[in-house]
């Protein structure tokens, strides 16, 4: 740790509000390689504020890669150049002195820009409201060990449940499709015994809202899986497609 500071040129997307034209603005920064990417932006903002200038709006919260709040497109890649991490886990030791870094928001029709690097991902919640649950009320459930689940099935469900809802899959996709996100949730429940009673209704409801919210279609480029900070597999998309097709055959609705 504690190597010499590096100097960087940042080209950051600035946009004052939802319906105004934005542009890239240049900033020169000097930063410790032990700093995180977002700490670099914190320092930039602190110096902008001291000069009385408007700081760069960006979102983050846990800064441990689990809450899914942060998300920047860095040099064209959602969450930056290092695979399987969120933006907040990216550290400056991955850049070299003299580098130019382009920083943009996650761009998608379904994720309108609020300001600068902040986008509105409420469409994800809307999909979840439609079916991202098992319909059990509090209380009156069986003892936890009365539902044995094969270890590898539990592990596969877990792999799908690990999605942090950041939206990188949508930002990475040339069609701005949300299939990886939606299929991860559908798969978690589709694999587990608890999810079986509502399996087909759930997939129909969630896909319906997904389509309404303006997300694009999936054309199997797998860019979503490549950029996902949690390594969510595109196998979930196949599973969701299969569930969806079967649901049309077996279910009364749609």
């Amino acid at each position, binding site marked *: 740790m*504690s190597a010499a500071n590096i100097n960087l040129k940042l080209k950051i997307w600035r946009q*004052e509000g939802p319906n105004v034209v934005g542009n890239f603005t240049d900033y020169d920064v000097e930063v*410790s390689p032990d*700093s*995180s990417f977002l*700490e670099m932006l*914190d320092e930039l903002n*602190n110096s902008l*504020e*001291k000069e*009385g*200038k*408007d*700081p760069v*709006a960006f979102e*983050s*919260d*846990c*800064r*441990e*890669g*689990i*809450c899914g*709040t942060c998300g920047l497109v860095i040099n064209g890649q959602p969450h930056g150049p*290092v695979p399987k991490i969120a933006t907040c*886990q990216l*550290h400056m*030791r991955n850049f070299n002195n003299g580098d130019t870094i382009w920083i943009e928001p996650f761009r998608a029709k379904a994720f309108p820009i*609020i300001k600068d690097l902040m986008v*509105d*991902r*409420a469409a*994800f*919640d809307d999909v*979840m*409201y*439609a079916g*991202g*649950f*098992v*319909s*059990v*009320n*509090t*209380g009156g*459930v*069986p*003892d*936890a*060990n009365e*539902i*044995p689940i094969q*270890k590898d099935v*539990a592990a596969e*469900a*877990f792999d799908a*449940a690990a999605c942090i*809802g950041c939206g990188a899959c949508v930002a990475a996709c040339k069609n701005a499709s949300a299939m990886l996100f939606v299929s991860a949730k559908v798969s*978690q429940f589709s694999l587990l015994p*608890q999810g079986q009673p509502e399996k087909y209704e759930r997939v129909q409801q969630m896909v319906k809202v997904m389509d309404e919210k303006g997300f694009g279609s999936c054309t199997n480029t797998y860019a979503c899986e490549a950029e996902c900070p949690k390594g969510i597999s595109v196998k979930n998309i196949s599973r969701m497609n299969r569930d969806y097709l079967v649901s049309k055959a077996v279910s009364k609705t749609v």
Partner: protein
Amino acid sequence: MAVLNSKVPDGHISEKWTNHKFSIKLINPANKRKYDIIVVGTGLAGSSAAASLAELGYNVKAFTFHDSARRAHSIAAQGGINAAKNYQNDGDSVYRLFYDTVKGGDFRSREANVHRLAEVSNNIIDQCVAQGVPFAREYGGLLDNRSFGGAQVSRTFYARGQTGQQLLLGAYSALNRQVGKGKVKMYTRKEMVELVVVNGKACGIITRDLATGEVEKHSAHAVILATGGYGNVYFLSTNAMNCNVTAAWRAHRKGAFFSNPCYTQIHPTCLPVHGEGQSKLTLMSESLRNDGRVWVSKKKADMRAPGDIPEDERDYYLERKYPSFGNLSPRDISSRSAKEAVDDGRGVKGGEAVYLDFRDAINRLGQPAIEEKYGNLFEMYETITGENPYKVPMMIYPAPHYTMGGLWVDYNLMSNLPGLFVLGEANFSDHGANRLGASALMQGLADGYFVIPYTIGDYLASEKPELIPTDHEQFVKEESEINDLVKRLLATNGEHTVDEFHKKLGRIMWNKVGMARNEAGLKEAIEEIKEMRDSFWDEVKVVGGAEGVNQTLERAGRVVDYLELGELMARDALERNESCGGHFREEYQTNEGEALRDDQNYTHVSAWEFNDVGDWTHHKEDLNFEYVKLATRSYK
């Protein structure tokens, strides 16, 4: 003092909750829809409460300042959740979980509350599994457990290293279902900035929209705060960037008593500070101490690489000092021991860090077994530090993590302000002076799923269904005061940024109201904070306007509250002339450097009533230990 009535029910400890549920008032199912309830915060406590109350038929308005309910900081909890299932056949029971938690809290919690927590712990696991939470399982398909600090049984349920995320997604899914049904109205990006009190009862809140800047009024028959802790008063903590005390503090200013603010938990296993630009500290789950061994060199300022320090020159100080609990000693004890080693000059290369070493566990169990248990934690460590913990020991140091203090509540989780309920980390109730690992998730979900759905009825049953309208003069007054506060912050135009103030306050708090406190330091801290508070209003610079996104303004409002809370924490620490749990007063220790409680004079909860800025009245609630005998907490 008669002001504080804990309303702990009569009867044997194991029957209190059952009796209470029978004796409290109910609202019939058809009438529940006549009542509106505001829930602020959507972490484990808030989401589970909002969902469960909506299932019962109440109309719920749920508020979060995040863009989505799923972002709340409960999500970052790694290690696990305790329950007294005794699935491991190792002698666990509700009574043992109760006993361990009271003892772990250093005998400063309310027995009846803790017993109830232990009682409902098993229901929580059942509920989460039914929701589809993917807990770790054995090959036979049943649930797996591991052990955690302060316990000699394996009672912790876990979901890889992301138990908090999976439990929160479970509660969020229950919430989603009610949002979909229209029983919960979800308000995102809305920060509660004021509590509205009419005729002595909480009846609404004022919020500020963090995307538009709009100030709004919301009324209800009851207000539930589930807004987390105040660890970010230290600036550097393991809390998320946006965690803050504002909702709880503004309720305190409106009359809700704040209890035991000096009980702060400094977590022993966090990553050390890398430099001035550090924005927050990262926790490494305590579960790592199941297999990792904590050590420092026996020599001072030993500059050798860890691999070059031979076995006989290493001091496995936790194993040496606390042979029966060893590396799994409770958090307060482990943190303080790390500080002692560092103060003695024996930290890593003379600095502020100690080693957490997996060499022996890897040799014993093989790397794949360690990967399966802790894989994501090891990856996280490598991402942040650039070092591979399979090859070199981790470096760790304590950091502020959790706050046991919070708003005072009675057995029904209602504050002294009628109609204001407080759940989860935001209240003071269950952890005493120190929280055991894997108990925060348990408490958040216990409060939300299994306590508040019963106890809120006891209050609402005597309330008329008529709602106080938001054009009531009190709402209008509070709204205009918030607008004035915003204007004042924007108009100051000084020279120092909000973060500069926050960092400066954080340093005072860490140095003087941190892991070890003394009378002189606390008195200095109080004076320094007062001075900072005065200079803040002359020197702070908040750029931008009141409309649209203004993240600087958001932070400024929170720092205003920290500058008042910080002083109260120091006052509370100064008033408590003893050492207990997370509160260690250097004047009160044994010859071996262990915490020295004063049960004669301090077996009480402190509850502070706000009179004016920097002016409080001190109230006490006496604690009675009928079942767990007061004893010196020993983990030797």
